[in-house]
């Protein structure tokens, strides 16, 4: 952009300048805040541990604050701007009516410590959402205390631990496929277990023979994602569950992405004992740049007593109250979990109903299958099984032939007005591009994705260097991440280091 730059030069509409920080914009004496005069006696407080000076916050007026944040927003991609086929993240469009519900003052302004008699509506929302989630997953009870999927995982694993402990067992192992999401092994460690990797076979599915060989009575349970992270359905799931149950282990379902199975199959029917799901992926909560989410845990009847508490329960007098499950693992969140996210999910589930949820699964899979089909010409699809809601393509061949890597292709996709897919995950596929179109994208949009990918496969041969340099239109390009870690600057008070 032309120098000298005016304030809006960081808006992509007119410039590509860096946006100053609030600290850069700060001028002593500026302010946005406004409060009434103190209307009670305001004698000196003389508190112990009193502050010696004012907090070291920036000083900006409302006008500069508003423009600053609006300009920053314009520097960010989002589902509400365009397609976002980020595999395993389910970046679908979320209905605005659910946003409306989450802003409803009758819920938004509730204090979590309000006694049950004054928040019956909120408690009924929790019960209603629990019912729906149990019908979808084929479970008995569910807790909405976990605020995200990883929290749901540790909650489920602590339930697993409590189950074995009550039976006087000190089991040490939890089995996890090598394709598992990173939160799975991390949660296993936090639960005091050892994560043992189960290899995948050439079809991208769990190697059931290897699994069988690993089963012994030191195995607390098996943690599985199905469809797994390469987007394939674990067809031997029933046998796997039997193997684990044979040693009285528990089978855990990572249901972060339920899109593909809504109204098609239910974890409970497959033999799972514990299921967490991500309301922020499947049930209409936009991702907010990294949260908030909600990771409810649903379990079979025999595990219900271990759920975190308190749980909402319908009491004899017909009202809903808070009850602590008899053998509860305790509390996993400071309040009742991310309640407003649950409210969103309930509005979504009610708006769609059973038929609508099934339609979600059908069209999520249809879009993925259609896109995979169109990509198969130019990209390797490493596995022969039909994909569910997402699939993994490999840029290995392209890399070998042209030196263009998955990363180059992902970045170049941005120049086509489409968000990049997930790269280099799962780890079992080289140069993995994990692609999830989601059910809310139209066929035309899916076709535009296919056309863009095809174009890139050609460009990799005709102008590889251009792809190494991609993206070309974004305000910043390939930031130096190594430098960021080497010269750590994580607050504006830290000196920017230079190479």
């Amino acid at each position: 952009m032309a120098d000298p730059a005016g304030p809006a030069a960081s808006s992509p509409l007119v410039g590509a300048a860096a946006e100053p920080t609030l600290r850069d914009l700060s001028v002593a004496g500026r302010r946005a805040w406004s409060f009434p005069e103190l209307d009670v006696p305001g004698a000196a407080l003389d508190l112990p541990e009193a502050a010696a000076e004012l907090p070291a916050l920036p000083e900006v007026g409302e006008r500069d604050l508003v423009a600053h944040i609006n300009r920053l927003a314009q520097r960010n991609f989002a589902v509400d701007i365009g397609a976002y086929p980020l595999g395993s993240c389910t970046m679908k469009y979320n209905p605005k009516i659910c946003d409306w519900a989450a802003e409803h003052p009758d819920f938004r302004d509730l204090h979590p410590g309000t006694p049950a008699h004054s928040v019956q509506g909120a408690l009924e929302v929790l019960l209603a959402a629990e019912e729906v989630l149990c019908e979808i997953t084929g479970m008995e009870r569910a807790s909405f205390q976990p605020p995200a999927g990883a929290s749901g995982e540790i909650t489920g694993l602590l339930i697993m631990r409590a189950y074995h402990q009550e039976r006087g067992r000190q089991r040490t192992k939890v089995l996890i496929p090598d394709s598992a999401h990173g939160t799975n092994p991390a949660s296993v460690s936090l639960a005091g277990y050892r994560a043992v990797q189960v290899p995948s076979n050439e079809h991208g599915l769990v190697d059931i023979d290897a699994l069988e060989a690993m089963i012994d009575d030191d195995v607390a349970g098996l943690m599985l994602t199905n469809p797994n992270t390469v987007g394939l359905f674990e067809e031997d799931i029933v046998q796997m569950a039997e193997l684990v149950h044979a040693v009285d282990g528990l089978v855990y379902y990572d249901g972060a992405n339920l899109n593909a199975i809504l109204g098609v199959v239910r974890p409970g029917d497959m033999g799972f004992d514990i299921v967490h799901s991500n309301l922020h992926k499947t049930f209409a909560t936009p991702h907010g740049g990294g949260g908030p989410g909600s990771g409810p845990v649903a379990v079979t009847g025999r595990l219900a007593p271990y759920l975190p508490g308190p749980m909402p329960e319908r009491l004899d007098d017909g009202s809903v109250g808070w009850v602590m499950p008899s053998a509860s693992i305790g509390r996993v969140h400071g309040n009742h979990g991310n309640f407003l996210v649950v409210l969103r999910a309930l509005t979504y589930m009610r708006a769609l109903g059973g038929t609508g949820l099934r339609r979600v699964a059908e069209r999520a899979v249809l879009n993925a299958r259609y896109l995979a089909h169109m990509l198969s010409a130019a990209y390797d699809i490493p596995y022969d099984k039909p994909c569910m809601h997402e699939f993994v393509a490999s840029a290995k061949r392209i890399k070998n032939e042209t030196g263009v890597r998955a990363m180059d292709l992902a970045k170049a996709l941005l120049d086509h007005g489409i968000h990049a897919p997930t790269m280099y995950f799962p780890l079992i596929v080289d140069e993995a591009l994990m692609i999830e179109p989601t059910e809310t994208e139209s066929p035309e949009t899916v076709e535009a994705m296919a056309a863009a990918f095809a174009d890139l496969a050609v460009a990799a041969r005709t102008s590889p260097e251009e792809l190494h340099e991609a993206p070309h239109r974004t305000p910043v390009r390939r930031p130096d991440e190594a430098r960021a870690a080497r010269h750590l600057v994580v607050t504006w008070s830290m000196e920017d280091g230079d190479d």
Partner: protein
Amino acid sequence: MDFTPHTEADVERMLGAIGLADIDDLFAHLPATVRIDRPLRLPGPLSEPEVIEMVDAYGAKNRSRLVCFAGGGIYDHYLPPVVRTLTMRPEFVTAYTPYQPEVSQGVLQVLFEFQSMVAAIMGLDVANASLYDGVTAVVEAMNMAVAATGRDVVWVSRGLSPRAREALATFASARGIDLVEHPMVGGRTAWDAAAAGPPAAVIFGQPNYLGIIEDYAAATDLAHGTGALSVALVDPMTLGVLRTPGSAGVDIAVAEGQPLGNPRSFGGPVVGLLATKLDQVRRIPGRLIGRTVDGDGQTAYVMTLRTREQDIRREKASSNICTNQSLNAVAAAVHLAWLGPGGLAEVGRQSAAKARYLAKRLGQLPGVTVAVEAPFVREFPVLLPVDPARVVAAMADRGFLAGLPLAGDYPEFPGGLLVAVTERRTRRQLDGFADALKEVIADG
């Protein structure tokens, strides 16, 4: 309703392209034994106006307009509309975690500014890009301290939020961590240097759950004397009037960040704050945003020190957290900028002055006493001559959420009620509260 764009013709065409005849064929390879051959048994579908009717109906069963004197981490502070307006920009609301920095500078920079301002109000070097809430932040702090010291005992003040102590208990046992509780005397922690140890961490609330200001030095000296990390759960809205935990020698400061930019939300989504010293940065849980430059030397922001995280480090990660509370952190950043130094100080000053005024009024009511002598900031415990639970119910009929009964968490205060005051409460409301409480007590 239906949010999939596909027409029947679209579906036909696409099925044809992939060589399938029927939509159900998409699932033909799934084991027949587990496929369900019936629609899910669920209410709905509903049209949009019916959804609105439903939510309004549930909402009508809540008393959402009670004048709020409840606290315990969640407070009714003034939230300027500009915070929601800016936070709800679709580019923030509908973006994923900023994996692609080229198209995520907006979220990344706001989170960088969030980290900077959180570190500033805490008086510490670094802060992360948010945790689930204040209580889980305490758990993460415990895990950091255990990792930092290799010890498996943690000292906890009885004055620490009961919710936090419950969560610590939930997560400690699985990892073989022993929690040792230190008692309260006169509303403050009476630390027992002879307790079983040595501890990995010394954890306390500042102010503590009763609203009382703890002696910083007592806790931090104890911690440093034993080679432990000192961990404080602080109330961010008091940081305009109380010294920063960093300046008081705290190693890890955590907080429930709800009052910064977020409505009470029935307790969630809110946002957990965590700040610490530079030497602990590699043990910080969750996202951390750093500043760097791009190929053209342009300033850019990226997620950094990723090797701490689960997606890279897997079972050896510093935490399992992935999705956090970014949008709530954005709201907190905007609100912190709106407040600035003067605003945060004003909130603290007015909340404290109004709390004192109310405590004085309540102390004059027959049979009511302020439970402890020790100085509080903006929340304080009173002892009532009537069952606090019944008082809260009766006060609700009079339009007040009177506070949080203490007996369940602190049997030592059978008639205890924890009352919180914010700058938002007007003198009229404070007087009305006192008058209503007087009536309620009179009615027994």
